[in-house]
């Protein structure tokens, strides 16, 4: 398997505060790798280090065979980036945005113009070719940003929270397109805090918190390794009281969050039987998912 990117023991601090604290990641060609973490975990800084936009305080980085940041310019020739916040050129039309962006890669106008129809097709924006940016919806802007990141036919794509702020329809269309890109053999590195996005798209994931990778593996691995396979969520005014009295007997572990109790179990049957005796409590029995792992590893407290 070819390694497209390897980062070893990356460090970056701002004002004495470690933002990236010993991160090592390697990406294989054709895989989709997800970097998950709460806000402020250091995901965006990690991406900026990988692109050579900031100097690391320590560590080694190679991207597409080039040492970064020293030869980041050469590496970025074959990389596409979808940033967290839209930065399309508002004065230009959809097609002009692609043309102008392609020039930054040293492409000839004729070469870019030849690619534009396919890019617009991919982004489902063919009918918006000559429309100015401010009239596009949020989903269209994201799709155009994705098309723009593909203008140089990159081997690797960095996507920083590609679906944040989109409605479900728009999000599903982006997911479908990202899946197509992995089928074409492109390597994707995406950051997200949507667990369903990560579970659906990523071959491998790492959960990041306080600048460190705290767990890494396939979505299935992470769930199997970190958490009991079944979850029973119990809701109701007296749920917390009930949990204190009964849950410990039937659940390996439980967490109280307001009027909800999350019980983690290997076998849910005894717990479900117990719940039959409390008709005032509502409950939901489901398999454990990535969000449970994420909350277990990074805690339930707000990060603001």
């Amino acid at each position, binding site marked *: 398997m070819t390694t497209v990117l390897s980062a070893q023991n990356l460090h970056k601090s*701002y004002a004495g505060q470690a933002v990236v604290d010993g991160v090592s990641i390697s990406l294989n060609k054709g895989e989709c790798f997800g970097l998950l973490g709460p806000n402020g975990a250091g995901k965006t800084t990690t991406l900026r280090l990988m*692109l050579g*936009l*900031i*100097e690391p305080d320590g560590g080694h980085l190679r991207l597409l065979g080039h040492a970064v940041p020293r030869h980041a*310019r*050469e590496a*970025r*020739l074959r*990389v596409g*980036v979808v*940033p967290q*916040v*839209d*930065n*399309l*050129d*508002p*004065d*230009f039309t959809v097609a*002009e945005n692609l043309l*102008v*962006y392609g*020039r*930054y*890669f*040293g492409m000839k106008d004729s070469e870019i113009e030849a690619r534009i129809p396919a890019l617009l097709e991919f982004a489902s924006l063919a009918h918006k070719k000559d429309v100015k940016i401010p009239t596009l919806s949020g989903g269209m802007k994201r799709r155009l940003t994705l098309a723009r990141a593909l203008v*140089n036919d990159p081997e690797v794509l960095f996507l920083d929270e590609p679906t944040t702020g989109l409605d479900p329809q728009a999000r599903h269309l982006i997911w479908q397109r990202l899946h197509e890109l992995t089928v074409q053999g492109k390597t994707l590195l995406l950051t997200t805090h949507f667990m369903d996005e990560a579970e659906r798209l990523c071959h491998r994931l790492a959960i990041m918190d306080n600048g460190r990778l705290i767990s890494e593996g396939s979505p299935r691995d992470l769930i199997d390794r970190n958490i009991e396979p079944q979850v029973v969520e119990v809701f109701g005014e007296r749920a917390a009281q009930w949990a204190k009295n009964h849950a410990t007997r039937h659940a390996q572990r439980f967490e109280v969050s307001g009027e909800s109790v999350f019980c983690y179990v290997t076998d849910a049957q005894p717990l479900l039987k117990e719940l039959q005796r409390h008709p005032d409590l509502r409950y939901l029995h489901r398999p454990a998912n990535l969000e449970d792992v994420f909350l277990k590893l990074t805690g339930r407290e707000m990060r603001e």
Partner: protein
Amino acid sequence: MNSHHFAPPRLSLRFFPIWQRHLLVWKKLAASSIIGHIADPMIYLLGLGYGLGSLLPQMGGTSYLVFLAAGTICYSTMNSASFEALYSGFSRMKEQRTWEAIMNTPVTLDDIVLAEMLWAASKSLLSGVTVLVAVWLLGLSHSPMLLWLAPLALMVGLCFAAMGLIVTALAPSYDFFMYYFTLVITPMMLLCGVFFPVEQLPPLWQNVSSALPLTHAVNIARPLMSGNAPPHALLHVAVLLGYALTGFYVSLVLFRRRLSQ
């Protein structure tokens, strides 16, 4: 501040697509932009030139209108570059995140800052040439020496673009630019011989004036306007280029620091 912020500029031809980008935006707004380029200096030139000029004797052998025309070319090129480097530059760096988008490609920050400086200087050239055409049409001067005012406009543009970029690199918001215009640009207009000869100032202020770049621009422009070769031209050019190069380097260091956060 890190040591690599002070590294010498690494320039490449990749600045050119950025300059092309700015040009494409400008073309879309060209009509209103050109009207601004003509209207502002013309109002000063004709208003003050005819109004004040009729009260004034000849200035160094020329009419006040011709005297003022040389000053107007310099101050309007100064203004063009300053506005571009401050307001438009800031908008591209911060509001629109244009720089951020560009830096994700093989283009670097050094290329971006170079493109900003050259683009602002291009606007100065345009603004200088516009005034020059007006001077020619008004019949104020028909000397072939006038053509030298075009490269001068470009040089003044580079100088004030570079100085303006320092302010942009430090600005927390658009409001900050008021200080620069009120405390630097406007005093320069009054101290550097745009409207009246520097010799009219008290000796202390004459010394201050001799250190300001606009004075050196005016000292080149004024003889050219009357069809004469400017004395000490090399010295004046050196001062303007000195400001341009120093300003470029200082602004680059500040931008590197700002954008590495």
